[in-house]
């Protein structure tokens, strides 16, 4: 259970460029929910995700993960609770290190890295098995430096890394946006499978309508730092890209009219 209470984040406070990226956003995510967040640029969707990950300290509000208040924890202190996949496929992996070494570090997410060899034959065998789950043949290339792989392969591995240790929440930040269409589809299919198989509580940010409609059990639409639409269950299932576009347009006119009065 993820609880976000009145989370507020203002960039450049007191300057002419002041941006209120998050305005008292409150949100509860139940265990096992797959929440898709959609919104325009500057709607606050990435800031919300970054706030949960601990990328900044909020101006006000609270975040708790499974009952633990993490509001004042730094990003690396929260890491044991959070699995992350970034928009940039190069962000999630260490390029000069091998696939096995990257996976080993991910297996130790949030727990101390000791002065002993952890990557022994047994661990290699375990990691080979887990890598085989991806179905990409990478289990035979565990000794390959990860920088030699394609963006899609690296993103698939990042996804695996985020789930090697069960996270309280999996954060996906437009993680298919920088991939070619085929890789994007492959990574999205893999995401679906992993979320289902490991019963992962997931928050996925996307700007792709199709992706937003086709995936997840709940949809949030953000606009100017607030959650404007929160659909789940049948409402979410009935959603089509056309309806979503319409709602978007409505939201925008409503807002701008509202601003004028």
């Amino acid at each position, binding site marked *: 259970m993820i609880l976000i209470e009145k989370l507020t984040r203002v960039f450049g406070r007191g300057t002419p460029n002041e941006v209120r990226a998050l305005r008292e956003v409150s949100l509860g995510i139940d265990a096992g929910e797959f929440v898709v967040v959609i919104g325009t640029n500057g709607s606050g969707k990435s800031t919300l995700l970054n706030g949960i990950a601990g990328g900044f300290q909020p101006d006000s509000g609270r975040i708790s993960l499974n009952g633990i208040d993490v509001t004042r924890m730094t990003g690396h202190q929260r890491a044991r609770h959070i699995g992350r996949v970034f928009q940039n496929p190069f962000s999630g992996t260490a*390029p000069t290190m091998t696939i096995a070494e990257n996976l080993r570090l991910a297996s130790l997410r949030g727990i101390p890295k000791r002065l002993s060899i952890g990557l022994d034959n047994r661990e290699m065998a375990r990691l080979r098995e887990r890598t085989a789950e991806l179905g990409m043949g990478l289990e035979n290339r565990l000794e390959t430096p990860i920088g030699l792989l394609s963006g899609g392969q690296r993103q698939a591995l990042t996804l695996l890394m985020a789930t090697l240790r069960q996270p309280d929440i999996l954060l996906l930040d437009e993680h298919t946006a920088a991939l070619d269409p085929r890789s994007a589809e492959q990574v999205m299919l893999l995401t679906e499978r992993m979320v289902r198989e490991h019963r992962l509580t997931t928050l996925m940010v996307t700007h792709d309508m199709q992706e937003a409609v086709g995936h997840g059990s709940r949809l949030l639409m953000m606009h100017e730092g607030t959650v404007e639409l929160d659909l789940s269950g049948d409402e979410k299932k009935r959603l089509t890209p056309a309806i979503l576009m319409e709602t978007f347009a409505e939201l925008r006119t409503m807002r701008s009219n509202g601003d004028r009065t």
Partner: protein
Amino acid sequence: MELLFGAIALGLAYAFLGMGIFITMRIFNFPDITADGSLTLGGSLTAALLTAGVSPWLAVPASMIAGFLAGSATGAIYTKLKVNGLLSGILVMTALYSVNLRIMGRSNTPLISVRTVLSPFADIADPTLRLLAPILLFLLLVAAFILFLRWLFRTDFGLAMRATGDNEVMIAAQGVATDRMKIIGIGCSNALIALSGSLVAQYQGFADIGMGIGIIVFGLASVIIGDTLAGLFGERFRIGIRLICVATGSILFRGLVAATLSIGLNPTDLKIVTAIFVLLTIMLPQARAAIRGRVR
């Protein structure tokens, strides 16, 4: 013969400098120039301790601890006080100049009449063997440290260290406090550099306040030669082999220095020759690529 042996022994002693620079530059991607101060720190602390009658086998580790502290000071200024990396190194290096003078109490300490790690070899009758003994001792030390570092960078902690230099976003997401890693890493690097200073002082028979001036470029030279050597073997990733190449680079570089001196070059010109040499080695791959591009 003596010149060659001298070059090899010094090359091995300076190999630790190369290994230290390798750690900050290649593993942590951090331009650390504390070296100028920490090498002298190793030399001057060793000199002071040996003169005070301390066993050389205590003086050497003490120098390494001092070097570690100096390096972690640079790391802390860089990470915690958010000072530019190069400037952090310059600050500590500058401060160390005074510290080193305080430690020695003067600018030059001769170590001819005190017991050093090399003293046991002074009584060897055979002149060739007497020259060879320090080389063997240094070689043993270099091998031991390469094995240790190879092990270290394969442990879980070592993997986290490497990832810190390779992709900070990634390793932070795995829950590693990267600031702490950098402080420890820059500390380890300077412990090795101080060890280098300690051995060089004992081999040369004196510690001098100026022994570290411009030494960073010597370390860079061995790292760059080492990388070129490793590249020849197609080895870009395995750390043990890369460290062997760095140590070999250090010996080759000392050989080059000895050769330049033996053809009658003034020792005072050594630094500019070194600088030009390092520049050339850095430029070489670019020049080669440019020429190749033109041919095609």
